[in-house]
């Protein structure tokens, strides 16, 4: 647990944990608004954005691609909101329409353009490259205080840190308004809250988290972190603040445990090589959710919960 850990594992662990936090935080609200699939949607719609960014910039580089992905995510977010409001349909249906159409458009664009000659790796998109985010200058714990060595940190760490901070600020500052409009949008409107803007801003923040995390750790973690930690957390507590706290705990545990299990688990079992960290992290969140569903104190029926659903809503 010395130099080798700092060089090989510290940065991936931090990036994984930050990505998990950045996605799980807005995931809490999206889950309660029945929009949790937005993570899945965003990880698909970024494809046309990445291709367009490549066509415009002419190179495979992180910054233009993230900008392209971010722009595509925002376009999809607006489209989903517009279709949902104008068509008065389930958010899930609106997302399904938008993300399949945009993903398909991205595939066509990729085939018809020079980008098809470039190796845009599907596997990279799915699993990310968490293990490769090593800190070559991290010669030991002392490197954390060495400005020279710190400059060598993977740029993904800085990006993910800034995005996580932005997501945390957004959630913290708008907490009350987000909770009220998530629980009862009509009532929130009568308080004078700009519910449409809030809803759009929440999804835009989620999109930003997804794009940053997608670049660093791949879409599989993004999709898992939007849903699993908040869902597991809901089964542990009956308070919104408690749910968010539990979800962050689950997210960090998944990231750390998943990374360690992927790196060492197979060796303990006698296999030679490690498995994908992203895949293992997503699996761990799934297992945590399953455990919460079986043992969680607040799952339906556990505390003698009776949910009364009365007459249907009329116009």
């Amino acid at each position, binding site marked *: 647990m010395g130099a080798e850990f700092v060089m090989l594992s510290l940065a991936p662990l931090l990036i994984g944990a930050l990505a998990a936090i950045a996605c799980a935080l807005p995931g809490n609200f999206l889950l309660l608004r029945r929009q949790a699939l937005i993570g899945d949607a965003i990880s698909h719609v970024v494809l046309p954005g990445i291709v367009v960014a490549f066509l415009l910039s002419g190179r495979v580089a992180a910054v233009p691609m993230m900008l392209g992905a971010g722009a595509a995510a925002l376009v999809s977010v607006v489209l989903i909101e517009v279709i949902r409001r104008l068509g008065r349909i389930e958010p899930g249906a609106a997302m399904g329409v938008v993300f399949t159409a945009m993903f398909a458009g991205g595939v066509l664009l990729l085939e018809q353009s020079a980008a098809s000659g470039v190796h845009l790796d599907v596997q990279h998109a799915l699993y990310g490259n968490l293990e490769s985010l090593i800190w070559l200058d991290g010669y030991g714990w002392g490197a954390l205080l060495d400005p020279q060595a710190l400059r060598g940190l993977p740029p993904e760490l800085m990006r993910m840190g800034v995005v996580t901070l932005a997501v945390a600020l957004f959630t913290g500052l708008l907490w009350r308004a987000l909770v009220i409009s998530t629980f*009862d*949008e009509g009532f929130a409107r009568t*308080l004078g809250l700009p519910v449409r803007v809030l809803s759009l801003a929440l999804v835009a923040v989620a999109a930003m988290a997804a794009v940053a995390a997608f670049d660093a750790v791949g879409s599989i973690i993004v999709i898992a972190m939007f849903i699993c930690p908040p869902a597991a957390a809901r089964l542990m507590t*009956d308070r919104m603040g408690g749910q968010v706290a539990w979800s962050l705990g689950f997210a960090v545990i998944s990231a750390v445990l998943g990374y360690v299990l992927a790196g060492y688990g197979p060796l303990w079992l006698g296999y030679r090589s490690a498995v994908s960290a992203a895949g293992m992290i997503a699996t761990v969140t799934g297992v945590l959710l399953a455990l919460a569903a079986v043992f969680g104190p607040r799952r339906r029926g556990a505390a003698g*919960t*009776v949910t*009364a659903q*009365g007459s249907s809503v*009329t116009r």
Partner: protein
Amino acid sequence: MALELVREKPVDQNPLAISGLTVSYGEKPAVFSVDVSFQEGRMTAIVGPNGAGKSTLLKAALGILRPLSGRVTAFGRPLDEMRARIAYVPQRASVDWDFPARVIDVVMMGLYRELGLLGRVRARHRARAMESLARVGMEGFATRQIGQLSGGQQQRVFLARALAQGADLYLLDEPFAGVDAATERAIIGVLKALRDEGRTVVAVHHDLSTVPAYFDRAFLINTTAIAEGPVAEVMTESNLRAAYGGRLGSARQAV
């Protein structure tokens, strides 16, 4: 100058005045060109058959739905300026009661306009919330998860949230839908007390038989406005026939 004054139409000073309101879901209007004004210090029932646009009228007046046309004023001013004086109680079934919140958390939402985004919750805020709960007989349930409540209890929590707002105009959407008799008595008691304090209550109501006992005035609607006034003058055979048509028989069976 004098001509200007004559031409100026006097602004309706009532707590809620709606003119020319039209709302449509798709092709068919749900509410068509409705003019209505609700009087201060009175309890008014909005009555009409299913699908008559009762809830839609309220939601559009409050800006929850976007109307195609129409003008809404509250206390003689644009509604947005008067939001602090208006409390809205939505239909109980319009929210997910599995939401992670306790009864007190929901009631505290009524204090949002006072607390703002980051204002600290002080003892007096908590006391106001508890007082509101006590008025609806729910003070013993403050720390219960809202999903564990019965339908009637949930409706009372919604009313307590509105009471915490300390408003002058209370707009309720079907407050008696699917609640037990004890809750119905508790709610009507609170509403009448509000009225006796000089506040204004407007409620969407579907039970014709209780309108005379519960309300001072009635507004009869079936997509278009039919009549508004004291209950006895509005609930006439011909008005009801105009609102309910052939369905009057089945609506009356409850009487």
